[in-house]
């Protein structure tokens, strides 16, 4: 045994020894609970590969491509994760340059480089960006984000080449916010495309994109966008602060960020809006708001968002102002109906029958005759059935969804009335409430309204109009105290801001909207030049 020990090590034995050394070190790191990635790159290619292969063991998409570099036949390896890198680049550019072009180089010139990595960076790799890395942490992060990493034997540095690729949906019309008039492009799942859509609408260097990664496991790209000089600095700082405070394993959708940075997590009202529309984000940024893009979702967060923002749609700005104002007021009415519709019906029919005109009362009583439930139970049955239908319609495949709505309309609507389980008046009220809640353009806001409705229904059934008044007061108090990123939720209504009220429940013509909302923008308020009100050319008649 001892004789064998003295014999010089064979290549295989040497390799095994290297392996053991690295693995030992890995194990030690694991045991001591130290970040195993916080390692410098070894100068030995073998050691590096052993380490990486150990890390990526059982990850079948991890790929190493070993080759010899230049005339000197330096051992080199390109490591990458398959699928998220552009195969064409690897095959046609990187490997080609490194394996073939490197041989034909005038090596005399290249000998002036003492460092092979400098040579590769300067003369061989014709890529837009490459980065030099010497820590495994960054190398591994890079690889997982679609970089190919070149390791060269004898160098404790690596070259990281970003060639990410990913299957991306085409830019298409957003499904949640359709318009009659307005741009038909919507965000997609790729943050780069999303950012480019916004950049294409705001061509100023003041538009800033601050990017970083969030999520210990997901390492999701997050970008905070704002226009410097318009968005107040304290708002930007606050948003960045809140986002950077997040420590979470996975960020799949912007909704997760929203829940982690909103002001009041227990409020039924959302304080951050989301949109799929680049034009919406662009105009919000121009109002001094900040948006957060999250890779992998078409929904972009916009903050701060106050009450009136949730009752506005992009198209309001594109149509002529008479109609836009009309629709906005309708939406406010719809908000009230969606919130209080069934409760007012319950309150009036069980407590305040004297409030109904006699003839209407008679027909309501006639329709209620024979219904075995009290009004509250009747309303609950219908409302819950309606929520069933709605939820079922959303989750089911689209083709089945239609069948559900037909069955729902027939069974719940028609048959229940025929059978005398619910009254026609209640069906009308519930349907009206449902339609009214569809009028609210912001889905997240409508969800809150849908939920509060049930609470108010119970209050209405116990205390009648008094209960409703109580609920409305409680809501008002809550709304008044609610703040989103330092902005009162009810602005510009209270604290009143007359200039901003021009774009709230009504929408004044563009030429009359002189300034950006001052509750958002503090400094650069000028929105439109004065005297731009359109009028026919002057003096035509007098000249003749």
């Amino acid at each position, binding site marked *: 045994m001892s004789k064998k020990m003295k014999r010089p090590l064979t290549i295989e034995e040497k390799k095994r020894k290297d392996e053991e050394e690295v693995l030992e070190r890995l194990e030690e790191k694991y045991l001591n609970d130290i970040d195993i990635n916080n390692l410098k790159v070894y100068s030995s290619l073998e050691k590096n590969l052993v380490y990486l292969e150990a890390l990526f063991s059982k990850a079948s998409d991890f790929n190493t491509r070993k080759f010899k570099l230049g005339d000197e036949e330096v051992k080199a390896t390109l490591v990458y994760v398959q699928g998220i890198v552009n195969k064409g680049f690897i095959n046609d550019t990187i490997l080609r340059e490194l394996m073939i072009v490197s041989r034909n180089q005038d090596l005399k010139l290249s000998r002036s480089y003492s460092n092979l990595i400098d040579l590769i960076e300067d003369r061989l790799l014709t890529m837009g960006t490459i980065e030099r890395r010497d820590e495994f942490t960054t190398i591994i992060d890079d690889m997982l984000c679609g970089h190919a990493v070149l390791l060269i034997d004898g160098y404790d540095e690596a070259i990281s080449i970003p060639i990410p690729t990913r299957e991306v949906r085409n830019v298409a019309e957003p499904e949640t916010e359709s318009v009659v008039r307005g741009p038909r492009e919507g965000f997609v799942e790729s943050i780069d495309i999303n950012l480019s859509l916004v950049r294409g609408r705001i061509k100023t260097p003041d538009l800033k994109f601050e990017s970083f990664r969030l999520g210990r496991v997901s390492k999701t790209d997050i970008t905070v966008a704002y226009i410097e000089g318009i968005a107040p600095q304290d708002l930007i700082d606050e948003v960045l602060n809140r986002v950077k405070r997040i420590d979470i394993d996975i960020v799949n959708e912007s909704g997760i960020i929203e829940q982690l940075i909103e002001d009041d997590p227990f409020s039924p009202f959302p304080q951050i809006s989301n949109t799929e529309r680049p034009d919406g984000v662009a105009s919000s940024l121009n109002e001094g708001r900040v948006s957060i893009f999250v890779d992998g979702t078409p929904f972009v967060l916009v903050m701060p968002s106050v009450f009136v923002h949730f009752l506005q749609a992009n198209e309001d700005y594109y149509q002529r102002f008479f109609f836009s104002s009309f629709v906005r007021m309708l939406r406010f009415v719809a908000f009230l109906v969606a919130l209080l519709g069934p409760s007012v019906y319950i309150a009036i*029919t*069980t*407590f305040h*029958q*004297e409030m109904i005109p*006699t*003839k209407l*009362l*008679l*027909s*309501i*009583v*006639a*329709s*209620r*005759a*024979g*219904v075995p439930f*009290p*009004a509250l139970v009747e309303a609950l049955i219908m409302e819950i059935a309606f929520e069933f239908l709605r939820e079922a319609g959303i989750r089911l495949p689209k083709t089945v969804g239609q069948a559900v709505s037909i069955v729902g309309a027939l069974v719940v609507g028609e048959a229940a*009335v025929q059978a*005398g389980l619910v*009254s*026609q*008046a209640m069906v009308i009220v519930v349907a009206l409430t449902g339609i009214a809640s569809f009028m609210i353009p912001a889905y997240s806001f409508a969800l809150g309204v849908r939920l509060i409705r049930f609470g108010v229904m*119970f*209050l209405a*059934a*116990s*205390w*009648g109009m008094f209960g409703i008044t109580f609920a409305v007061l409680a809501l008002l108090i809550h709304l008044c105290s609610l703040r989103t990123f330092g902005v009162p939720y009810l602005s510009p209504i209270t604290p009143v801001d007359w200039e901003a009220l021009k774009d709230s429940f009504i929408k004044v013509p563009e030429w009359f909207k002189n300034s950006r909302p001052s509750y958002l923008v503090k400094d650069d308020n000028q929105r439109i030049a004065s005297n731009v009100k359109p009028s026919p050319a002057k003096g035509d008649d007098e000249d003749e």
Partner: protein
Amino acid sequence: MLSLHQLKGMMKMNRRSISLLLLLLLVVNLTACAGKREMDELGIVGLTAVDWDPKQQKYEIMVQVIVPSRAGGGMGGSNIQLWNATATGKTLMRASKNLRSRVSKKLVWFHSNLIIIGEQAAKKGLKDIIDFFARNKEIRYNSWVLISEYPIRETLESNPRFEGSLPSEIQGLIENNKTDWSESYSINLKDMLIRLADDDFDEITGRLTNHRPQLAPEGTYEQLDLVKDVPVDLRDVIALSGAAVLKDGKLKGWLDRVESKGYLFIADEIEGGAIVEYSKEKEKFSAEILSNKSKLKPEFKNGKVSFKLEVKTDVAITEAITKLDLTKSEDIELLQKDLAKEVKKYIETTLKTAQQEYNADIFGYGNAIYRSYPKKWEEIKDDWDQIFPTVVTDIKVEIIVKRLGMISQPITKPQ
């Protein structure tokens, strides 16, 4: 460290707010839906009638309850069943409580907009009755108070011709009278209360009578078969005609249609629709009032009170069979004078009836004196009953013909 502290604070606050919320929810349960009335438990009283039975010395209260039924397929107000009930009692409250022993539904009065008082009860006095109604919070102050010349039982059983129920039928009659007819005058509970509370202001309100339909009944008849045994087309229908005059809440007598119209002129209550008609020799005229303004003013001369009534009326000619040339202003003036004379006649008749026959100050003469000469009113107040019939009213009527209608010249001349 700070964040940990804050977190603890938040947890504490949450626990507190959650327990507060739970407490609030408990309160909701505790109310047990106080004051709740489900709609299908209600018997909606459409009208209330009160009469006095002199033999039994008891009040008789009658209600017509509207019971909507679902038989015809849900919403649709036409499917109304009416249900009449009557009960007697020493007091009205007793009588109305006695009603409840016969009703399975909870009787509610807030949609009753009609109080009909029978002749006997009106003669006995309205004050007790109105006290009961005005005190009750379910009775609306804008309910009409009418006096029925026709026996109340039959009033309730009569046939609504157009509307589904009697209350809305009578309501329609009152509205129609106000805007299109002006030959009756009804007041609501609030005004009745005001007049009853004022000793020197006497009451007047609409008179309900019956009317036997002359034409064959229409479809609406068949829906309702309220009175057993009587063939539908032989039943009377309700009509509103003239007014009842009360003094100190006691029925004194009736005003006929012309007198009622005269009353409307004096009280400045004409809203339009009233007509003025006259025939002289062979000429015939009628005119519809477009607008009217009456001014009543008391005057004192030699310690004697007299009244000045100025009536200014715009009319449109509706019929003209005449030799006059209506395009000439002199002829129009002649016509205006004749019409004014006619209006004066209406007013004089009314004044005469109210002053001489009933001695009831339904015009509010006393109130007018009190407003203009409060001190002198104090002197004559006690003798007002004696003074009122002797008060002279100087009537000035000015009529202006505003429109001649679609044709200006008469097509026929009087023969």
